[in-house]
């Protein structure tokens, strides 16, 4: 062990707990706030009509009048990103919601159901887990055809198996805990124990998981639109913007770089908030 490392340890341990919220969390929350604003009142943030075609202004690079440049029909990309945020966020939130709810149902059945049901569900989740999320989504889309609703269900179904395993683990560890044993010893009914002790404690970490899942779901959903298997252009949904911009990658790289950057920023912000929630919840438990 080197001297540097030894001297580092006491300084970190001896530092008083920070009062100020961490910079990355504040930045992420501000960013999410801006996206929420864009989704609810896009006309306030937009500088142009997102759907107005102007062929004289086609494929212009970023400038003061067109912050993100213009697309092949002269539409203002910044305004299109702003107007696309509602659909993009709704798809991401919807998919994360579908995934988490399905995960809670499957996970709870696998952990609390009667033995035969629990074993079957457990195996079923393991089978679903063998399909990578994107492929599961593609399987569903090939049956139902591409649309915003299919996209939500497909991404939700793709992410659900992983989260279902997590929920099952949480419930099982809550089941083994001291407070549940105490409640059993006090003679409380199983239904009451599940309702009052197991579910609240097992599901609390899901708040953080949900935030992480929103970030991931937006990335998956936009991947589907990018492949032309989700919401289609001319919709300004972010994945559709990418899909539309691909044809102009040589002349107008910003048409794909900027919408992609917006998706990455949103996903990173949601992930950061999720991680802070996670550590916060863990600290709270101690």
């Amino acid at each position, binding site marked *: 062990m080197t001297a540097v490392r030894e001297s580092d340890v006491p300084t970190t341990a001896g530092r008083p707990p920070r009062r100020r919220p961490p910079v990355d969390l504040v930045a992420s929350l501000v960013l999410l706030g801006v996206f929420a604003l864009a989704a609810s009142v896009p006309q306030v943030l937009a500088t142009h009509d997102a759907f107005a075609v102007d062929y004289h202004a086609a494929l212009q690079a970023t400038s003061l009048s067109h912050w993100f440049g213009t697309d092949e029909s002269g539409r203002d990309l910044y305004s299109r990103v702003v107007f696309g945020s509602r659909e993009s966020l709704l798809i991401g939130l919807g998919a994360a919601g579908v995934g988490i709810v399905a995960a809670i149902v499957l996970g709870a059945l696998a952990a609390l159901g009667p033995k035969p049901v629990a074993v079957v569900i457990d195996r079923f989740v393991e089978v679903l887990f063998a399909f990578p999320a994107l*492929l599961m989504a*593609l*399987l569903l889309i090939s049956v139902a055809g591409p649309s915003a609703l299919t996209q939500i269900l497909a991404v939700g179904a793709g992410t659900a198996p992983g989260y279902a395993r997590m929920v099952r683990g949480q419930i099982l560890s809550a089941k083994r805990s001291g407070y549940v044993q105490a409640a059993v010893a006090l003679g409380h009914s199983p239904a009451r124990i599940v309702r009052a002790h197991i579910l609240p404690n097992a599901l609390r970490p899901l708040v953080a998981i949900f935030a992480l899942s929103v970030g991931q779901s937006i990335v998956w959903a*936009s991947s589907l639109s990018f492949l032309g*298997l989700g919401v289609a252009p001319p919709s300004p949904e972010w994945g559709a913007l990418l899909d539309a911009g691909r044809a102009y990658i040589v002349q107008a790289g910003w048409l794909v770089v900027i919408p992609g950057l917006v998706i990455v920023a949103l996903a990173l912000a949601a*992930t950061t908030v999720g*991680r802070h929630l996670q550590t916060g919840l863990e600290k709270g438990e101690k």
Partner: protein
Amino acid sequence: MTRISSGKTLALRIAGRAASAVVVLWGAVTVAFVAQLLLPGDRATVILNIRAGQPQERTPDELAPIIAQFGLDRPEIVQYLDYLRGIVTGDLGTSYQQFRPVSAIIGEQLGATVILSLTAITIAWLLMVAWVTLTAGRGPRVGAAASAVDVTAAGLPAYWLGIILLLVFALGLHWFPVIGGTGLSGLVLPAFTLAIPLAGFLSQATRTEFERSLQQPFVLTARLRGMGDTGVRLRHVLRHAILPAVTLTGWALGATLSGAVVVESIFSRPGIGSVLVGAVNSHDLPVVVGIVTLVAAFYVIANLLVDVGYTIVDPRLALV
């Protein structure tokens, strides 16, 4: 005596893992088969319309050969058993659109994707080992910055990373071909697109373990023998720290094979990913189901091998 009995437990454990892998595979095949039945409308009509590329009413005369070829007049359970028997013998059915065996369509394209996937995993490992050896256990500041890089890299969507690499290295610097590009030079950018996020995931898993191993007594012993810091990290610490990443590699195979869908589309590379996107678009379910099942099978088998490999490498696990 003990050796024999522990050998038996090992064999039993491996057999148990293999049996559960078979159950998962059977389940995956069944899920995939059920998906085919869910396609709305009369299946013979659907198949003909997919082939023609436009929906229209069909006469019984037109439908009869399709029904006969796909055996659609038999009860579903017979079709299912037939499908299962086909899977065992490597027959994945017939494409709705191309009217060729699915196994032939996949066989033509599988090589390109597997090469891409294995190259990406290798690059990801090299990136991870270099990055973690360089940055782990260098104090809290470097640690925080390096983990931030891990998290960001792991979160980069393949389509965006691929486009950035394409813009910078193919269109900007002209180091690599823009599209297609047979041979090695065409493989570099797609492989890095898959490898960089994967390296982020692997680094996250390795870093914690690496920093824990750095505190172990054997590190002190090696240092006292006069071994340099880099030597200790590479020869002793790394060996202990890579176990979680080894576990993740089974998962990584599935992740890169499905990531190939997006990457092959960006770089216009041939492979099962581009076949899959085309098949999803045209509702060609036998092809979709064949590819999805195949990737699930790769995933299950890779995880089984990782598990068995573990048990053999780490004797403590055989005792559990």
